[in-house]
């Protein structure tokens, strides 16, 4: 009996160890939920560790019992099963133990809920994030800045993000900075956190929002205060007038084509707000809501046939000639 129990226990111990190692590996992934870089994400993480270990305790207990019982009490000639109907004391005990475990979980849970919901700190940087199919718009009302898919925030200052939606439900999620909150039409949700490490973080829409839900990604740049101020200043400026010939021709194409029906480039006739603002397009790291790097090749690929890159894209294939595409790429990349 004893000999059959030991391998079972070893098996369970091994799988638990494996499990923990594997969870640890997940920490270093770019979009990891267990590598917090803000106060909000930190408090979630501490709760997560608590419930993880409590859960592990229960898991190990139940699995061990099941495996051991399965080995120890398996059919043997001559063995009689014990005819027990129950044991009140034992049953009360294992009703009570989960209650204790849950109370241990509940108290810090409620505390963190209270801390992370409600009113944001009064000195917060206010950002209005609006979800669109399938990109994010970020407006900084205090700074008068509007941008798309790339959010810049200063380090160590609370940010309060108002979450709106222009069409369907989206969800704003930067795992390393905060848990997600949905962007619901007709509602103004909010979210606040204080980032505590400079860096680039990945975000992604986390509520299924249609065809290109998978392609609705964004970046958050946590900058030093100086870098952030510089970014605001440069973004507030009107567009840089194209200097070289190709880019000038590109602006010509831009302002006389369908582009201006949806986009804004401040300083030109383009002032529509259907698609992302492009005044400083060239300074962004990514295109097409964070799905590819901002390189001339990728921009050209996008312009050639947007729905091929991002299925369902609201930007149609404009059937631009290769010549027009080259000019537009030069122009857009010049918009630093």
């Amino acid at each position: 009996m004893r000999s059959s129990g030991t391998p079972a226990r070893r098996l369970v111990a091994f799988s638990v160890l494996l499990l923990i190692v594997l969870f640890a590996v997940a920490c270093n992934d770019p979009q990891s939920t267990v590598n917090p870089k803000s106060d909000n994400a930190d408090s979630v993480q501490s709760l997560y560790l608590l419930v993880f270990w409590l859960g592990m305790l229960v898991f190990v207990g139940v699995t061990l019992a099941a495996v051991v019982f399965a080995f120890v009490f398996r059919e043997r000639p001559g063995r009689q099963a014990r005819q027990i109907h129950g044991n009140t004391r034992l049953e009360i005990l294992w009703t009570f133990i989960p209650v204790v475990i849950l109370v241990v979980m509940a108290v810090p849970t409620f505390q963190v809920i209270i801390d992370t919901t409600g009113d944001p700190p009064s000195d917060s940087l206010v950002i209005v994030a609006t979800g669109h199919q399938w990109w994010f718009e970020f407006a900084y009302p205090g700074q008068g800045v509007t941008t798309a898919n790339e959010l810049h925030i200063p380090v160590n200052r609370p940010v309060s993000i108002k979450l709106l939606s222009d069409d369907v439900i989206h969800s704003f999620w930067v795992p390393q900075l905060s848990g997600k909150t949905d962007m619901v039409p007709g509602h103004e949700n909010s979210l606040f956190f204080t980032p505590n490490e400079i860096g680039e973080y990945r975000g992604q829409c986390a509520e299924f929002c249609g065809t290109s839900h998978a392609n609705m990604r964004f970046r958050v740049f946590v900058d030093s205060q100086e870098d952030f101020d510089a970014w605001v200043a440069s973004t507030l400026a009107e567009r840089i007038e194209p200097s070289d010939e190709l880019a000038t021709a590109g602006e010509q194409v831009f302002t006389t084509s369908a582009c201006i029906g949806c986009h804004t480039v401040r300083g030109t006739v383009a002032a529509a707000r259907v698609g992302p603002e492009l005044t400083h397009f060239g300074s962004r790291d990514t295109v097409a809501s964070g799905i590819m790097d901002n390189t001339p090749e990728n921009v050209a690929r996008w312009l050639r046939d947007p729905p091929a890159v991002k299925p369902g894209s609201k930007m149609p294939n404009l059937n631009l000639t290769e010549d027009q595409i080259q000019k537009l790429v030069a122009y857009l990349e010049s918009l630093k």
Partner: protein
Amino acid sequence: MATAAGTMPAVGSHTGLWSWLTTVDHKRIGTLYGVTAVLFFMLGGLEALAVRTQLAVPNATVIEAGRFNQFFTMHALTMIFLAVMPLGAAFFNWFVPLMIGARDVAFPRLNALSYWVFLGGGLLLVSSFIFGGAPDAGWFAYAPLSGKTYAGSGMDFYVIGLLTLGLSSLIAALNFAVTIINMRAPGMTMMRLPVFIWMTIVVAFLLILSLPVLTVALVQMLFDRNFETNFFVATNGGDPILWQHLFWVFGHPEVYVLILPSFGIISEVLPVFSRKPLFGYTAIVFAGVSIGVLGWAVWSHHMFTTGLGTVPQIVFSASTMAIAVPTGVKIFNWLATMYGGNIRFTTAMYFAVSVIVLFTIGGITGVMHAVVPVDTQQQDTYFIVAHLHYVLFGGAIMGIFSGIYYWFPKMTGRFLGEGLGKLQFWLFFIGMNLTFFPMHFLGVSGMPRRIYTYDAGLGWEMWNMVATIGSYIIAVGMLAFVWNFFKSMRKPATAADDAWGMGATLEWATSSPPPEHDFDVIPAVHDRDPLWYNRDHGITPEPAPAHLHIHMPPPSYYPLVMAGGVLMLGVGVLSHLAVTALGVVIILYSAWAWILEPTD
């Protein structure tokens, strides 16, 4: 033991297509439910394989985005409404009358009606693939993405399909509730009911009370999509959150509808193969009932990220944690049932024990989601996908297969092969763990659910590949089951009344398979495990009288006709008003004929 000799006057034939179309026999209807559901289960499995194939490697192009969205939506709808629920219904149909010692359900023709309406609704839903595309807004169809502005005709099939399936489930649930309350054998008090029957009645009441809420939500969606109301359209005064609340008021009890039959099954299998009574019967029953009641108070935990506000988050967090207590009680009592037993490890027992472990994993991650801040990191990621599959595959499906192996000899008179059965078990067990366990890691690494593509370099490549391999292993396991089924069915029916030689409940007191009237003599019940009581007290079953005069309800084709009318009603809403009108006429005609039809 018993044969049907002298029982039945020759009312039509007992074989052939017509006999199946007009049957009102609960066992045949159970078989229809079971076979249909297994076929839908395999269809849902194919949809899942398509999804997993697309996700095997980053930036794959196996299926395009729109198709992918249809596949994962239909996978969920198929598995929930067309596979797991009807598989539960198959067991209810087969074993509720047998286990409570009745000759049939309370309303045999309504029972047939619920099957035919289910079949119609299921085919309607699946037919959307042919008519302009399947539903593609996810199985919980959040407005406004499911509204007319953003979703095509697939969502109309969703609305009509679910309304039809809801009608079927409601009829069936009412029938089972009345049957269990009113048709018990003498001596079968409520506290002597087998746990499986207790879980059935909890499921029946959950459905009876939750389906109307879904119906209202679906009607509102139907009106929003077709009659220009604005229930869920924010710009015109509506609120998309209303859909979420109504849907989850139904949706959370629905989760228990899916899992409780399986809890009931393993509560039968574990004691029988441990050869000892269920540990803490009363506690397990009350735990099941309190899960059913508490299940109404937790729906908003599906909505923690929607901006509920501080107080509702705390309230629903607390109520969700509370549900872990009765669930824990069940798990510990099952373990205690194994303790001190003389456990015979049949395939059914393999599946039953695996449910304890696998469901525990799903239960623990469920409690994690009750911790709201943690849930905001896990909601809508693969962590949730892992959690729900540990509950629905590890809990519900493994439990259902336990039931299939356990009761197959009762249903057919033939045993399923144990060798192939254990092969299937290991393929399922390894396959499901390979598929779903890595999804925890994917969720922790930030992979959202319902994405058709992802980039390399996020640490998701390996686990997605492992999950895809796992899903194919499950598929092979299913092939092993199908092979096992056909192999067994070719053998002669040899199973004894008490096929395993240690049955405790009344179904083992009649022949395998049972006669049409179930029992020659309705057994009297003296204890919770009636057959063990009889064995221990030397009570021998009443001999069948020489002349049985048992009237069973005659076959009827009106349930089929009326179900046709219901289907036309639905098809009419999708196509032309005239079809609806014709459907109404058919329903009225069949209702009138139904009432006047002699039943003796």
